[in-house]
């Protein structure tokens, strides 16, 4: 399911293809020639997109990151100046810190919750489809402006959260206007969308053969022991898969911070996500060169974190095949 296992499968498949081609050499080689032409036809929209929407803009973005460009005057080469600014810009450092904290807190919480509920749901109870739907729906809505609007009210001064707390006699100011709690409201919103990884966990749990548990039960292993020795090890590839996806996604969070802070990343930059700062530099100040440099730093960060995840996975991910 991961990109890597997908690639090895691909390699294996093409090896089989080759051994088959030895048997019926002639017909297959002529067919492959026909395949070749048809392939480029079928691939042409994707290839055009790869070139025009991805590769060329990436190249342009790299070049822009060494330039000063505000859309009005032609771009001028400034060498490493933008990257130097990255090193010295305190607001950027703050944005990095905010984003790191957001990723480091919300992703583990979300994964723990989704795994826990998937395990709970997988025990053959009644009403699973209903629970599953209820837990999954927020994942589909969580990225919308409307839900961000709702969050903005909920955690505001007289919002739903404070109204509820008031029932217990607790008084609290606005969670959004307070720099020490504003990021927390965004974390809750991300944790709220745990349904998508939960469904991936559920699908994976269904694939674990029941006989493993039966054998463990015969040997007298307790429920907890079974979870620790069977479920968890067999799920590690999926945990890893979800971890990689959620980390990449959380690094790019934008909409919620934008709507809840009114586009400012405030109060006092406490919800200034990296992408929000990039948006401000690129599309408010039209400092395109700096925004491009920021984009490349983002790519490098996401790449490094994904690589670290893959390296660390050797120590804890268990592949059963």
């Amino acid at each position: 399911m991961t990109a890597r296992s997908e690639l090895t499968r691909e390699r294996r498949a093409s090896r089989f293809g080759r051994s088959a081609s030895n048997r019926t050499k002639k017909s297959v080689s002529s067919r492959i020639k026909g395949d070749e032409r048809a392939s480029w036809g079928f691939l042409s929209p994707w290839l055009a997109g790869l070139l025009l929407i991805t590769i060329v803009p990436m190249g342009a973005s790299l070049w822009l990151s060494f330039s000063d460009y505000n859309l009005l005057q032609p771009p001028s080469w400034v060498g490493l100046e933008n990257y130097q600014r990255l090193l010295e810009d305190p607001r950027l450092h703050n944005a990095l810190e905010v984003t790191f904290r957001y990723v480091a807190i919300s992703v583990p919480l979300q994964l723990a919750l989704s795994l826990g509920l998937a395990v709970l749901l997988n025990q053959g109870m009644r009403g699973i489809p209903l629970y599953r739907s209820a837990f999954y729906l927020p994942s589909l809505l969580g990225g919308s402006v409307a839900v961000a609007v709702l969050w903005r009210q909920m955690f505001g001064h007289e919002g739903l959260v404070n109204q509820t707390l008031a029932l217990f006699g607790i008084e609290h100011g606005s969670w959004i206007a307070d720099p020490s709690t504003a990021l927390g409201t965004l974390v809750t919103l991300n944790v709220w969308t745990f349904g998508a990884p939960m469904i991936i966990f559920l699908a994976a749990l269904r694939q674990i053969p029941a006989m493993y548990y039966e054998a463990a039960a015969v040997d007298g292993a307790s429920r907890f022991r079974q979870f620790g020795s069977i479920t968890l090890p067999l799920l590690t590839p999926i945990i890893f898969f979800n971890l990689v996806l959620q980390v990449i996604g959380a690094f790019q969070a934008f909409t919620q911070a934008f709507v809840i802070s009114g586009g400012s990343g405030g109060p006092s930059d406490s919800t200034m996500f990296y992408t929000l700062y990039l948006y401000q530099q690129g599309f408010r100040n039209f400092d395109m060169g700096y925004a491009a440099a920021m984009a490349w730093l983002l790519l490098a960060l996401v790449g490094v974190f994904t690589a670290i995840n893959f390296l660390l996975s050797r120590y804890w991910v268990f592949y059963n095949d």
Partner: protein
Amino acid sequence: MTKSSARTATTRIGKHIVLIAVGILMLYPLLWMVASSLRPDEEIFHQAGLFVGEPRLSNYQDGWSALGQPFSHYIWNSLIVALGCIVGNLVSCSMAAYAFARLEFRNKAAFFAIMLMTIMLPIHVVIVPQYILFSQFGWTNTFIPLILPKILATDAFFIFLMVQFIRGLPRELDEAARIDGAGHVRTFLRIILPLMTPALATTAIFTFIWTWNDFFSQLIYLTDPDVYTVPVALRSFVDSASSSSWGQLFAMSVVSLLPVFVVFLIGQRYLVRGIATTGIK
């Protein structure tokens, strides 16, 4: 014996209580928003409950016309974008998927790897030059920058999804069609496409929801209120809203969530299957 069965019954009930509690916690904010949209403004900030004594639709009526254009205008714009993206994704991704799943060509493994890598590529890396390029063409404040990338299959997620699906189809079917003299185009159109409707449905549903919710690119490309889509219009509503128009804001938020909710109810099966096989959100 009775003791242990009583204990399993208790744990079973305990689990249901946990699940119900989480479910309520998850859905309460949404239900409360719907309830609040039917209340007068002053009650929104004093009513944590769901019960609405006298539901009134005035928030919906006033909210509908609170912006420069009636809200239906923005819904219409969003629908055009969503429809364009759905058609684009269905056509271009299925074509690419057929090539990857069934055809042999040079450097296939390398292209496949590149395709998988683009799934992980953050949009921010290309958005700056893309914006410059599209604005040079005069395409800002049109829907072209939003739809064209889909026509060119940049949502590689769906290519991957469809490749996985086509691989699961028996090869004998298209082999038979090939022996009967059908070319690749015919095999694709007549054999593969009809068989992959579940994957196409998943793609269409996800594309709809993602496009409907998408904010970043619509915010960047659509700056003229006439071409605002629902998310951008709603955002401008937030900025202009005072504390006295939260009811209207909630009402329009509910309206904007409704299509996603309906699609979720109809297409849940495809969504769950799509996520389970590829892990997309």
